[in-house]
């Protein structure tokens, strides 16, 4: 079990090295897909089927969006070398970070024996207090529903931001007929179909 997880994690690291260092942007994006799907298998092995499903589907959408960013644009590599000073200094900093992380990891509890002071209560009382046998859904929508409201707010903000950014030009002249032209519908018959929505 541990060996399998280790092999998958090393595989993910190799995939991300390829994603970072390859020249072509499209193959870089596909390597990110490799990392994400391996992550989904790891979630499944670690006893989290909810997250495995979500990660699998979200990874497909991430690939679609990133390919949208690269496929219609110029995806040749940038030839000029990055300045060596910033690369070397960042490498030194990351080496120091890894040394301290190695020291800090030894202070954590060992792998496989979590501290479950709060979670044992959740596991014991979820089926009785909320009626949901899936404890993750019970926590998400009953014990900690405030978190879910925050998530909905963030998602709404990102949608509004994407619409504002992707609009080609700001609307300068305001007229009375603007209220009908809010959407991005093209034909009059499409508009007619959704009159009664």
């Amino acid at each position, binding site marked *: 079990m541990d060996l399998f997880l280790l092999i998958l994690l090393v595989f993910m690291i190799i995939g991300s090295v390829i994603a970072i260092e390859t020249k072509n942007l499209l193959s870089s994006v596909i390597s990110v897909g490799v990392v994400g799907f391996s992550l989904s298998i790891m979630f499944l092995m670690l006893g989290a*089927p*909810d997250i*495995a*499903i*979500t990660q699998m*589907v*979200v990874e*497909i*959408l991430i690939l*679609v*969006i990133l390919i*949208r960013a690269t496929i219609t644009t110029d995806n040749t590599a940038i030839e000029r070398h990055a300045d060596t000073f910033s690369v070397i200094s960042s490498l030194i900093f990351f080496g120091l970070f890894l040394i301290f992380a190695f020291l800090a990891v030894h202070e954590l509890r060992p792998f496989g024996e979590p501290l479950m002071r709060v979670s044992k209560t959740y596991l014991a009382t979820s*089926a009785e*207090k*909320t*009626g*949901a*046998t*899936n404890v*993750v*859904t*019970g926590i*998400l*929508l*009953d014990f900690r*529903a*405030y978190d*879910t*409201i925050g998530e*909905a707010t963030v*998602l*709404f903000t*990102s*949608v509004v931001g*994407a*619409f504002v950014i*992707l*609009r*080609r*030009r700001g*609307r*300068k*002249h305001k*007229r009375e007929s603007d209220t009908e*032209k*809010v*959407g*991005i*519908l*093209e*034909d009059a018959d*499409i508009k007619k*179909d*959704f009159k009664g*929505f």
Partner: protein
Amino acid sequence: MHDIEKEIRESKSGMTMIVKTIVRFAMGIIILFGAYIVLYGHLTPGGGFAGGVILACGYIILTLAFGKDIALRKLSDQGASIMDNSGALAFIVIGLLGYTGGYFFLNFIDHGKRFELFSGGIIPLCNIAIALKVTASLFAIFIALAIFGKFISGLVEEEE
């Protein structure tokens, strides 16, 4: 209904005939699976987030295969906006209704029997609201990225 079928057959936009035929068969299965994941979210793995993303994937595959005109006819951006807002509003209203028993997000409906579809009080309702919201949001983001503001800019230039 027949002229829509004919239009789909004759439209040049989108991918080839093979892709369109397979997508037409797979679309129903994808939507059905997404609905199953949402509705059984409190009993089996899944829930509002995963099911919502699967439903959004269904609409996105429709956009990729048939082109934007057919997909916008199925779910326009105004429809997506209404769906998004109604999902968020339903979630908050369910939370506020908890004040009938004392506090915010109280599980005020009877819990029912374990391992049955109609159990868990407000949790299935919240799942449906969140699935509506996630579906509409992701589809709207994808439409905005795919169309890249063409229609909006067309309207603005028309005005000037």
